[in-house]
């Protein structure tokens, strides 16, 4: 999977799933991505993206047991796959390549 085919939200969510490890489920991913990007993503947007990443084979999922706090509904837990890890490395390489030499040309942010 080419890293270039990952959208901004897809990349953020894939990174979040990788970071959260065993704790990666919809709500925790949404909180993590929202806290880091400063953008309040909706539950639906996060799940639609998670579904897309799963279809692309970048993450896998399993259903955990039902919880009373969720009205008896189950959580869906996500895990990054080997293809997902490769995709992240490619994205990192591509970003590093794009940033190369930029440090000297942009002015530092005023304090």
């Amino acid at each position, binding site marked *: 999977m080419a890293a270039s085919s990952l959208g901004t939200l897809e990349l953020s969510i894939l990174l979040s799933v990788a970071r959260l490890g065993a704790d990666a489920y*919809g*709500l925790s991913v*949404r909180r993590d991505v929202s806290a880091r990007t400063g953008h309040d993503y*909706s*539950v*639906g*947007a996060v*799940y*639609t993206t998670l*579904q897309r990443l799963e279809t692309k084979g970048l993450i896998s999922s399993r*259903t955990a047991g*039902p*919880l*009373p*706090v*969720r*009205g*008896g*509904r*189950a*959580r*869906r837990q996500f895990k990054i796959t080997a293809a997902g890890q490769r995709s992240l490395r490619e994205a990192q390489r591509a970003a590093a390549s794009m940033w190369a030499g930029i440090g000297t040309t942009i002015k530092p942010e005023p304090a």
Partner: protein
Amino acid sequence: MITPQPPRTIELLLASIGAEAEFRDIVIGDLAEEFADRAAADGSPAAQRWYYREAIRATPHLAYNSIRRLGVRGLWRRLGIAASAYTITIVASLVPLAMLNGVAMSIGTPIPWKHFASSPSMMVGSIAADVALTMFGGYVAAYLDEDAPLVAAGVLGMVWLTAVFAAGPMIRTFSHVTPPESLFPIWYRSIARVLVPIGTIAGGVVRVSTRKPARDGASLGAKV
């Protein structure tokens, strides 16, 4: 201590959009879990406000999922339900209308249908009747489709609107008479058309919010 619960009607409405069961339950489950966290931290009113906002934001995603899983067979099924609901509604509205007309004729004071188009109060009354009729239709469509009642009500709105748009040209083409609707001013016709899908969906919402919960809890996930 009683744990605050998310607004039940909104949960029912979200569950009625017709998204696939797993996606629907995960989204509604996440909303419920975050609602509980927010209610504990910020209080129930703030959590409810958050819930309403998030429910609105989740709706397009649930609707998108619902449309994607519909398929050709599902679309035909919903069109069949819409056609049935439309027929039931038209028949149900014509019977009392015919009775009213019959009574008026028998007492020698026929209903002045032709003056409807020139009387603002009659037109407002007619719009109110249209709203009641489309809501009834939406209720029937939602009743006939327990799996995705709001989708059925929405499809009925589209079918109904198509019928309204098609009726005028068809009457002109096949009977060479002026369609009765064209006697009405443009504002009346515009409002009547805009209200068709709104009315059917409102009828669907009424059905969803008043129906008894499924015995197996399928529509809202099995309670623990």
